[in-house]
């Protein structure tokens, strides 16, 4: 078997040769390396991490996409800060964009127009910045789904799930604050909605809005304040969390798929130097290139078409940036009439309920790893990924969650759906409301069945091999299809997975069955009652002769 790895200690190109005929460059490299090492002991770092192994799978690139788009955001964002002025002082626009000449607007809006029309390359950088932000959030979202559906959040990685989740929330906050900075009609409308949302919160709402906007909406403070958050506070927290996230990846080592030679006790892949560094480094430039390509050819957020913010003009068919859609959709889907006056105070349940639902969704995502760990009671470390089908209940819950999110998200475009497909807005909203409730339930049931069916199919293949398409007539006249047995490598992928059974309720030391225990057993039944056990060697033996 040619599985020999290159030795860690392998000295660079054959030592005897290099010492006998040293070129001046290698002498310089040596001197420089020595100089640095004597002042930083960096050789220890190289020894430790230079040949660290990273496993290889396309789905492991999703987090990389997020990381690299964040770098692009930092680079382009820094450029933009050199020109953007976060002030709401009124000016009369006098730049090169003719249709808006002479229009009163805030300095923020006018400087954003200047970036777009008067700074060379400004529009390109602005568009790359916006596209990179969208890529960043999308990549985090898909990365989270990958982590979820493969069970990569299990011990010891629960805390890193929480950190990653915080990164996701920070990314949303960065997106929203950034979107609001140009002070154009759309972003102003977005802030108006936030203002209304905050005002609807009981007890503290009115004052929070008053303080946030520095007086009455819209005031002259909000853009400057969001700017401080957008370029200072949030990125600082984000960078720290990101560093922590990556430190944990190093501490835990990357997960990998189960496979021939790949066990829970090893990591199989390519070493950082040179393979992974070259591949990942190259991939950074590809991600940057794709984002730059979008920034070059696809206009995004053309604020010059929207004009400056004004509380009065209406703009039908406006959409928030897609990542805020689910929150906007929640506001649209709430059934009518949920606002009451009680004890001389206004209770805006048409706002409180959506806020609670969104909070509930977010908290559910945050704590899921801990819930599953509690149900299984499994305290072992897990470094091998689950194929989604091999954790049917988890996968089904995930699909239900995705559909719930999708229904909220789709609702944020209810008006566009209605106008494009010539439907009544009431109909679209009602269908979306039904989807919000039924979609997750149906999605859950279907997914769970599909997973179990796929597991059964895997069993079939492991036991009897796959259908070869070759029909043979036996001497007795019977026709059979010849099944081709899978080789041991293929079979290993089908049989190596975790299997759980429902928790048996047993009395504790006092001879009692506690309510908590009962509840846990119920949850465990829900998770593991329907299960397909992996094929065992005995079954194969028997299976061969039937």
């Amino acid at each position, binding site marked *: 078997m040619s599985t020999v790895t290159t030795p860690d*200690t392998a000295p660079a190109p054959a030592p005897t040769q290099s010492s006998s005929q040293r070129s001046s460059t290698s002498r310089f490299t040596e001197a420089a390396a020595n100089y640095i090492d004597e002042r930083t002991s960096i050789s220890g770092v190289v020894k430790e991490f230079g040949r660290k192994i990273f496993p290889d799978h396309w789905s492991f690139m999703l987090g990389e996409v997020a990381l690299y788009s964040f770098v692009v955001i930092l680079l382009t964002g820094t450029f933009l800060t050199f020109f953007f002025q976060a002030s709401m002082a009124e000016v009369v626009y006098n730049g090169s964009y003719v249709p808006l000449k002479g229009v009163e607007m805030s300095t923020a809006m006018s400087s954003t127009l200047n970036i777009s029309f008067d700074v060379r390359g400004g529009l390109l950088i602005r568009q790359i910045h916006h596209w990179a932000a969208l890529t960043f959030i999308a990549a985090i979202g898909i990365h989270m789904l990958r982590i979820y559906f493969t069970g990569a959040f299990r011990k010891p990685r629960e805390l890193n799930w929480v950190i990653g989740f915080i990164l996701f929330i920070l990314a949303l906050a960065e997106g929203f604050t950034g979107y609001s900075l140009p002070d154009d009609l759309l972003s102003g409308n977005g802030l108006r909605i936030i203002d209304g949302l905050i005002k609807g919160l009981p007890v503290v709402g009115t004052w929070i809005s008053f303080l946030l906007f520095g007086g009455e909406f819209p005031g002259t403070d909000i853009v400057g304040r969001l700017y401080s958050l957008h370029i200072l506070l949030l990125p600082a927290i984000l960078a720290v969390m990101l560093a922590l996230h990556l430190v944990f990846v190093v501490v835990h080592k990357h997960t990998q798929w189960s496979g021939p030679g790949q066990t829970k006790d090893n990591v199989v892949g390519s070493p950082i130097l040179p393979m992974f560094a070259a591949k990942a480094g190259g991939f950074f430039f590809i991600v940057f290139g794709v984002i730059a390509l979008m920034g070059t050819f696809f206009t995004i957020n053309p604020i010059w078409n929207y004009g400056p913010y004004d509380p009065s003009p209406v703009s039908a068919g406006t959409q928030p940036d897609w990542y805020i859609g689910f929150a906007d959709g929640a506001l649209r889907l709430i059934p009518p009439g949920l606002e009451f006056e009680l004890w001389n105070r206004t209770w805006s349940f048409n706002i409180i309920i959506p806020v609670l639902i969104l909070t509930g969704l977010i908290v559910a995502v945050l704590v899921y790893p801990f819930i599953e760990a509690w149900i299984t009671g499994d305290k072992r470390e897990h470094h091998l990924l689950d194929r989604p089908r091999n954790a049917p209940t988890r996968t089904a819950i995930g699909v239900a969650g995705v559909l719930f999110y999708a229904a909220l998200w789709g609702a944020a475009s209810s008006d566009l759906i209605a106008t494009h497909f010539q439907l009544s807005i009431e109909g679209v909203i009602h269908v979306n409301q039904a989807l919000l409730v039924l979609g997750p339930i149906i999605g859950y049931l279907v997914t769970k069945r599909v997973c179990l069916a796929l597991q059964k199919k895997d069993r079939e293949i492991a036991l009897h091999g796959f259908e070869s398409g070759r029909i043979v007539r036996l001497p007795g006249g019977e026709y059979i299809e010849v099944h081709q047995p899978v080789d041991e490598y293929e079979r290993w992928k089908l049989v190596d997975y975790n299997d759980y059974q429902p928790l048996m309720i047993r009395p504790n030391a006092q001879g009692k069955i506690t309510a908590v225990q009962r509840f846990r057993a119920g949850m465990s039944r829900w998770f593991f009652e329907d299960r397909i056990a992996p094929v065992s060697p005995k079954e194969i033996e028997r299976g061969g002769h039937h």
Partner: protein
Amino acid sequence: MAHDDLSGKDITAVSSAGVSHETAAPGTAVIPSETFENPGFPPHRPRVTDTDPKAEKKAERQVYTFFYLSIVGSIFAIASYMAFPIEDGDTGALRLHTMMLGIGIVLALFGLGFGAVHWSKSLMANHEGIDLRHPVRGSDETRARAVEIFKQANEESGFGRRTLVRNTLLGALVAFPLPAVVLFRGWGPQNENPVELLEHTMWKKGARLTLDPSGLPIKASDVTLGSAFHVIPEGLNESEHRLEEKAKAAVLLMRLDPAKLKESPERRGWSYDGIVAYSKICTHVGCPVALYEQQTHHLLCPCHQSTFDVTEECKVIFGPAKRALPQLPIAVDGEGYLIAQSDFHEPVGPSFWERSSS
């Protein structure tokens, strides 16, 4: 940090069972009595570039061609920056400038990216590397030492023993960030109360209804049947807080067939010959409600689709909003211009906690 020095050994040295001393509880996991043996790595398949020197040479050529292209892209971007300037107000020039600059940059990035990835995938050695995993928890000795250190620190400081010292320290630590909370009061103007501000708008008795945004007064006779006007109070454009006032005072003016208007007794006299004025600020979260359907007399909010029926005093007929749009009582002055009879009789815009109709 755990360091793995396994590389260099064969995988067979690392049987799947031996390394981590699994002591943690498996919970409800099923531990099968007998399992398959991990078959180990499948035979290594050499790439074309490993076996065919010609293919290797070709790959090498491709890689450096990519890097050359990248350099070309960077130079192209610099040249485009100078060759295709933005000319004043010419959007075509802007588009060309953005595109050419962008193409150069994209080429530079893609050249680097594809070159490096191609190099790594086709030319760099691709045998599997293996690291060993170790349990994340520290070794028992390390943990014992950590506990010992904490114990010693506790003894040396008396943290656990001197309880009053400890508790007052914790108290002080809890108290010290509180001034920061107070400081946030300064985010809003000091001697103002948001509740009072929200209850009034710029409208007052005799204020003329003027067109948004020009500020020209509106004659009742100009408001033809079926028309709708976007309205602001006179003097708003000169107001010190133009946008703040407009965010409360924006009004929509419509003329309907008076027979279609269903007016409650206390609001008789708030309209003028079928002309009605309603707040344009949605009672849900404050978007401007200004999609007017002339035939059905419905007002639709573009943000969350709350729908209001103008014939029924703008009560909500669909969507998340609950309250009707507040009505502005209007009349006509001596010169035939539309004027307000008073301010709104209730706060306009989104609901807020302290709001009450009584």
